[in-house]
């Protein structure tokens, strides 16, 4: 009885506690940040990966090399000639969301394509995947889509064993051009090579000042080791952290969207690259960092109100690293 009473009391006090810790909720994200700072007319820039690529390149950002685009059914069979000279490649729907419909091929020979797991797929399988992509199976609202073929990213050695069968990507929330919170998403066996936290990927919160791991969670519960490779997650340090944050911060210049999630990868040879931009970034980053977004967002809003502005990504990154060191 006493226990029940304590539980009920704990539940009633939850909102107060969460607010004290500055946890951003879905309603507030939609109303006070996305709805207020993201101009809907700019959404197409980030909802279409081809356009994102273009604006990122114009802004001087590094992006995965484009091998080609397949726009209609009649060109589907050309995929084999297209990738002939590339050892590995990735096929993505231009308007896919949440990592849906991404086919990764690490090597191929004589019409046999190999996936990261070692499984082989046939020419027909690859063609069918592209047909599905064109029909809109993976895109928002089932709209017709195009298939983007990109060079395979070879992720940096420092990430070895932090991810299982998938490229670990780094998500940075950028508010008015200031990076406010970051995490790395490492795929696991239970997330099936995908980097989505709600599907079981491990989220590692990163210190904005140093790029070092602060905390890691899987399914909202703290973890200390990667569940598949057993690598201790607190050893994670992102190399080229400054460069990566600058790249993330430049998303503000690229899109003009006030509240944005920048997804990046570190390539072995080419350094940090922008994978995609997200105008509706999720809230799981707070769980990974064990802290709320609100105080950080409010600090930036306070800067704005005082009329302080920093015009280059480098300046803003410097400000963020000072403000948000953990």
């Amino acid at each position: 009885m006493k226990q029940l009473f304590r539980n009920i009391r704990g539940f009633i006090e939850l909102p107060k506690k969460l607010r004290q810790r500055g946890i951003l909720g879905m309603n507030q994200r939609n109303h006070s940040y996305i709805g207020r700072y993201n101009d809907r007319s700019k959404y197409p820039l980030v909802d279409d990966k081809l356009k994102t690529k273009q604006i990122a390149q114009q802004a001087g950002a590094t992006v995965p090399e484009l091998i080609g685009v397949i726009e209609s059914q009649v060109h589907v069979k050309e995929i084999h000639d297209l990738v002939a000279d590339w050892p590995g490649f990735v096929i993505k729907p231009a308007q896919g969301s949440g990592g849906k419909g991404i086919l990764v091929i690490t090597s191929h020979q004589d019409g046999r394509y190999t996936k990261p797991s070692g499984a082989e797929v046939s020419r027909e399988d690859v063609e069918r995947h592209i047909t599905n992509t064109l029909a809109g199976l993976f895109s928002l609202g089932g709209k017709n889509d195009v298939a983007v073929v990109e060079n395979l990213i070879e992720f940096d050695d420092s990430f070895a064993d932090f991810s299982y069968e998938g490229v670990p990507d780094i998500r940075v929330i950028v508010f008015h051009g200031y990076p406010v919170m970051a995490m790395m998403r490492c795929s696991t066996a239970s997330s099936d090579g995908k980097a989505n936290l709600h599907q079981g990927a491990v989220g590692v919160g990163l210190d904005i000042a140093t790029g070092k791991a602060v905390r890691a969670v899987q399914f909202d519960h703290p973890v200390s080791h990667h569940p598949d490779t057993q690598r201790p997650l607190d050893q994670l340090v992102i190399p080229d952290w400054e460069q990566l944050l600058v790249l993330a911060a430049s998303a503000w210049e690229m899109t003009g969207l006030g509240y944005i999630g920048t997804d990046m990868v570190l390539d072995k040879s080419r350094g940090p690259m922008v994978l995609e931009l997200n105008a509706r970034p999720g809230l799981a980053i707070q769980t990974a960092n064990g802290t709320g977004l609100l105080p950080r967002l409010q600090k930036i809003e306070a800067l704005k109100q005082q009329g302080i502005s920093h015009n280059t990504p480098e300046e803003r990154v410097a400000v963020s690293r000072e403000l948000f060191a953990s």
Partner: protein
Amino acid sequence: MINRLPFYLFVAALVLVGVALSLYRHSVYGVPWFPGEQREQWEIEARIEFTANGDPAKVAMAIPNDQQNFILTDESSSSQGYGVAILEQKEQRKAEWSIRSAEGQQLIYYKARFLADADAQYQIRPPSKPRPQYLEDVRQTAALSMLQDAMKRSADNPTLARELIRQLNDVQNQNAALLLNSMNREDALVSLLSMEAVPARTVATLMLEDGRRRQSVQPWVQVWDEQKEQWQLFNPRTGAEGKPDNLLIWSLDYQSLLDVIGGRQSDVSFSMIAQDISPETATREKIEANDLLNFSIHSLPVEEQAMFKTIMLIPVGALLVVFLRIIVGLKTSGTFMPVLIAVAFVQTELVPGIIGFLLIVGTGLMIRSYLSRLNLLLVARISAVIIAVIMIISVFTVVAYRVGLLEGLSITFFPMIILSWTIERMSILWEEEGAKEVFVQGGGSLLTAVLVYLAMTSELVRHLTFNFVGLQLIILALILLLGNYTGYRLSELRRFRHLAQD
């Protein structure tokens, strides 16, 4: 920062206007806040059942007309595969259903809606003098003796009838006992009156009581009153005189209520519901007084009003959905799909509705998983799912009908296109996120639909939304305010509960 003041002023204005309109309707038009006891509209449904022989079948049923205290406002019939016609024969209206070939158990519904109205206008045709009926010797003598006695004690037709009924109900009266040995009371009364050339007839009546089902008609006797030039109604069993307010004359001829050719074991039963529409009646009179503020939906014909009764409930459903999503954080498949499903539930009743929904979506998902393997283009795939849904509905309807589950027939009320999209979306969800997410969202949708259904069928909610249009403004204001809510959703309290510990 946008100035929110105008917004809150606007919301406050909405609430004020809403409250003012409601108060106005309450005080000026006398519309009660709660569904009242005064019930003035009746919906009566006749359910005709028979076993068809497999030949052409023809069903004729007498149907009611305007009469003292009741005005027929609407009638409809539902009978699968039957042709239907309404025939006006002199005073008696008849509905006739026909079909070229029918076999097995048949069901025909006829529904009439009556508005109780003390000033109802209706036609009266003066009857011709009846030919006197003759009974065989002993009974004829008994009848004449009763008549002789009754004539002495009466002044006109109604009083004569009253006296005769008194005699018929007198257990001591041997003449009456003799007559009632071979004929029933109402026939005896009509025969007796015919001997004095007094027009009288046995009519089929229904005593209207709210929510009664499986009722059958009762014989009453109408006697022509020459002075008043109208029919006077008698209950031959009690001698009660005059028409009770809740007595409806269904047919002017008790004998030929129902005629079925091409079938056997025919039967007709009646169910009735009262609707509290006293506010409308009140309003209608006021409209005639030409009030400017009365461009309300209550000035529409009853049929359209009935439609608005449902339409006016949809904002309540929307409010619930907004609440469940913004405050609770329930996941549903398609934002307002649950509201449409709830509207279908209103037609099908809850339990058959839920079973029907699960059957359609479950079977649809199985068919869709096969289509998924065929690798079709999207539009073709959805179209195929729509056709599959229609076929599922047809098969279930036929099966339900064959096994005698008449509730199963209502499955056709489900919105097919919406269901097809639901199946499509859930199927994609299944492939991408796994079965768990399908059950989470499907369960969320169903829960929302049930809650919306419960709100929509609540007597109080129906009364308030339909009679107080001002409430719609208040609902709008509430929705606008909820659109401003930036607090945590209940589901987020669970999601982030670990962050509150540490």
